[in-house]
């Protein structure tokens, strides 16, 4: 299959970037999207052109490292897939494929298609954990009864891989779906209760500090999320934050 790739090239965080066109032939439909980029980079190296920098790691849809805004959608045209799980059979010969980095003030570009998503790590550090005694008398997690339905919903929230597709897709670059998933995975479980109030207040505060936008409830994030994280989590965070704000001592 022959394609015309239009790729964002930017030498560094402060450099000016632009879309560059690369014709590519011999792409096979069984290639993953990232393999297609590897294939392009091989050609670019042979031609003495600097290869395109892009994020990737596990290449099996669980690490959240791959990103890319492909033909106007985060992780491309597929639903509930990451870019590494997107295959070239989704495209046809002769197509023009636009490949851009995830765009947000909070996700500055490092180089080409690679963006800095450590803002998510800082939100996590602000409260995305529980404190557990590990001094030799650790309590088995299963010792506390948890209703099956709550455990399932907490697990659903915990499947968020922190890829940032929600931010990239949102017209406001809002991180509400990510933050709400990371808060919900604990707030639904008894183990998450001792720090529940502080968690939601601190993580939302950090989210605001990072410069993400606000939530307009368009629902685009839920559609584009490779893990199908539900908008219910955003409502839960809104609810928890409201009650925590009203009852917080500070």
């Amino acid at each position, binding site marked *: 299959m022959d394609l015309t790739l*239009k790729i*964002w090239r930017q030498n560094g965080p402060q450099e000016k970037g632009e*879309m560059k066109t690369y014709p590519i032939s011999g792409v096979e439909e069984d290639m993953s999207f990232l393999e297609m980029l590897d294939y392009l980079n091989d050609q670019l190296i042979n031609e003495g052109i600097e290869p395109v920098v892009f994020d990737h790691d596990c290449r099996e849809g669980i690490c959240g490292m791959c990103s890319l*805004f492909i*033909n*106007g*959608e985060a992780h491309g045209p597929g639903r509930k897939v990451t870019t590494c799980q997107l295959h070239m059979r989704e495209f046809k010969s002769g197509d023009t494929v*636009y490949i*851009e980095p995830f*765009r*947000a*003030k*909070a996700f500055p570009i490092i180089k080409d298609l690679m963006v800095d998503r450590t803002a998510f790590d800082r939100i996590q550090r602000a*409260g995305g954990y529980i404190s557990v005694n590990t001094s030799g008398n650790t309590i088995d997690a299963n010792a506390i009864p948890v209703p099956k339905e709550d455990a399932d919903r907490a697990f659903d929230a915990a499947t968020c891989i922190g890829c940032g597709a929600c931010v990239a*897709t949102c*017209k*406001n*670059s*809002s991180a509400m779906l990510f933050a709400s998933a990371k808060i919900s995975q604990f707030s639904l479980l008894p183990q998450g209760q001792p*720090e529940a*109030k*502080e*968690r939601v*207040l*601190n993580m*939302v*505060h950090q*989210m*605001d500090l990072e*410069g*993400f*936008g*606000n*939530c*307009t*409830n*368009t*629902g*685009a994030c839920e*559609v*584009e999320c490779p893990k199908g994280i539900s*908008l*219910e989590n*955003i*409502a*839960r*965070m*809104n*609810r*928890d*934050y*409201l009650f*925590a*704000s*009203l009852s*917080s001592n*500070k």
Partner: protein
Amino acid sequence: MATSSKGLFGSSLARKYWMAVSGLFLCTFLVGHLLGNFQLFVSGEEGKLAFNEYGHFMTTFPLVKILSYVTYLSVLLHTVDGILLALQNRAARPVGYVKEKQSVNASWASRKMALLGTLTLFFIIVHMKSFWYEMHFGSLGTDANGNKDLWTLTVTAFEQWWYVAFYVVAITGLAFHLSHGAQSAFQTLGINHPKYTPIIQKTMTAFAWLIPAGFVAVAVFLFVVQPGQNL
């Protein structure tokens, strides 16, 4: 864990709560306003006197006056908060995409709330100049009962095709604004439940289209019947 809370002011979530609360209050205002407008379906001297009596009541009864101040405040809050949110949202993505397919994952109205809100605000200003300003500060004549003749002012305005056209366009914009906003407010306030959310969404969607349809029906009725000409 040290807590950093801005409480119900300042944070992105709090700004949205105020948007939702003021928006929902303005929804209840629309219901009251529409019920008042339905009196315009009664033509003739009888309708005129009743409508002007109603206008007198709405501008003098203390409880209604309090409600009207809450309404002005809500419009102001919804506007200022909306502008602050829109500016923040714009700043959150300084460089946009070359190719972006927003229509595949979000409704048109949900993506155009600021634009639809601006149109609605413009309409409110024109609408208040036409009726509210004239009623409070204008030189309106009086009817047989001595009440200010708001009825004649109203039916005369809607005799003009361009006024009706502007009104219908603006109210349609409001309908789209409500089609997203009225149900979205519940999500913002954290009200999302597998049992109740489908009911809320259906009810608020019906609200978003039926209330504006009522306003348009009254306007079209006045234009077609021209009750001012038959008096």
